[in-house]
């Protein structure tokens, strides 16, 4: 369970996200939507401790454990897995070595766990990766890399999974697979999934809730049903008068 409270952060002088608050519970898939530059990536990066200036607000886990001021590797070892834009695969490492980063993190979090069994079971769930385990990860296709990134993230038994535009550059059929996979992960592993996405179809497929971001602020929250309501979506995405008013007054 991830709790973001009044978060404001910036890279340089100007804040990108303003006073953001949201929650994601275990087993929930929550999507952050919005146009480019809205601050979706920045939000995820701030949670991960990558953005340098956190001007105000806090991020905490269910246990009350605060993520504030922690370096990224410490946040990762607390069980927050992050798949950045572009998959975040290390191209120069082999598929197996990429996965081994995940098992190393697993050992760091749960020293008594058996890395070999976890690796074996993940390879079983992703047979395509098993076939290519000795290949350099840079040679995989976009979809395969996305699977590798998610598999690697799963290996460390995270409680929270953050994904930044997982559908980017993927064929529609693969996007569907990713959406199904995320739904499955949330349901069976009780992971809190927070993803930034522009692809509404993917969001419709797997999300329980959605937030709409515009210029660094949350302008609307939607339930899964509302996501299928085309008129409401059009309002929010293309800018109905009441939405524009509320952003102008911020």
């Amino acid at each position, binding site marked *: 369970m991830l709790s973001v409270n009044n978060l404001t952060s910036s890279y340089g002088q100007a804040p990108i996200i303003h006073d953001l608050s949201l929650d994601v519970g275990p087993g929930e898939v929550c999507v952050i939507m919005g146009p480019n530059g809205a601050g979706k990536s920045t939000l995820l990066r701030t949670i991960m401790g990558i953005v*340098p200036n956190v001007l105000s607000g806090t991020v905490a886990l269910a246990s009350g454990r605060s993520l504030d001021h922690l370096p990224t*590797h410490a946040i990762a070892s607390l069980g927050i897995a992050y798949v950045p834009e572009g998959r975040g695969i*290390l191209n*120069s490492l082999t598929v197996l070595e990429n996965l081994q980063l995940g098992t*190393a*993190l697993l050992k760091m979090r749960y020293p008594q766990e058996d890395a070999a069994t976890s690796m074996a079971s993940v390879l079983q769930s992703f047979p395509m990766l098993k076939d290519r385990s000795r290949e350099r990860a840079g040679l995989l296709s976009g979809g395969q890399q996305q699977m590798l990134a998610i598999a690697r993230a799963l290996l460390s038994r995270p409680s929270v999974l953050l994904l930044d535009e997982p559908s980017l550059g993927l064929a529609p059929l693969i996007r569907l697979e990713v959406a199904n996979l995320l739904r499955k992960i949330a349901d069976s592993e009780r992971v809190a999934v927070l993803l930034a996405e522009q692809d509404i179809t993917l969001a419709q497929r797997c999300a329980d809730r959605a937030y709409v971001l515009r210029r660094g602020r949350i302008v609307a929250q939607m339930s899964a049903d509302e996501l299928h309501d085309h008129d409401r979506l059009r309002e929010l995405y293309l800018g109905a008068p009441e939405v524009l008013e509320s952003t102008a007054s911020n």
Partner: protein
Amino acid sequence: MEFFIQLIVGGLSVGGTYALVALGFVLIFGVANVLNIAHAQSIMLAPFFSFILMDQAKLPAALAFPLALVLTVVIALIVYSAAIRPFLVAGRQSGYLAPFIGSFGASLFIENILAKIFGSSSHPFPIEIQRNVWRLGSIVFVPMQIVSMACVVIAALVLAWVVTRSKTGRSMRAVAENPIVAESQGISARRTIVITITIATILGAASGILFAAGNNELSPFMGMEYGLKGLVVMIIGGVTSLPGAVVAGLLLGIAEALAVGYLSSSFSMVISFGLLFVILLARPTGLFASASRESRP
């Protein structure tokens, strides 16, 4: 013909030591994305510390060398904390020239403080290696050359194993390619950089001791002298390539040896730069063009 082979042997020995220097620079540049000029001083500090420990503290070589190594690593990490680490903090907008120039300043400082303490001229660096000389047919192997080549081979093999097969090596390669992704996997980029600098410093220190013992000469300016050669080797080899550094080092060593043997000894530096020039014209990316991080100045 024998003269030729003799020169090759000498060239391989010296070239291997150049490769050690280059490997240190390549490691630091690859993992920390910084060209740390101050690393060159580990070449000079290790033999100096050894000398002081053996000469003043009367320690036996077997104790002095490891202790000198430790002291050199300590100094390297202090310089890293003062001049390099401030630039590794994400979001620090100071451009790329500052850490490079800063490391240069640190190098100047160390070099000249040593020169002030010990004088600018060279000292002898006598090491008791057995006087016997080995022969293979009519090729003569000076013991120092054997020791040197053995050290280089061992160091290269150990390094290759660490980089490709160990968990540390995997972390180093991960941080080298993308520190943010590496951090997301629980790898501390800072810790990895510290480990990298330690390994690099050990390589540099070893090369310094080999140079000093081989030439029976210890000078406060030998750091920059061999450091510059190592940097040229690094560029010829392809800047981010470890095997490239080894091949380029051997190549430079042989080229220098042949030039000095057949032409004259004043050609040493000309050869380094000349080779660099030729490579830049013929193969600008270096001998082993390599995978790179998004942006390297």
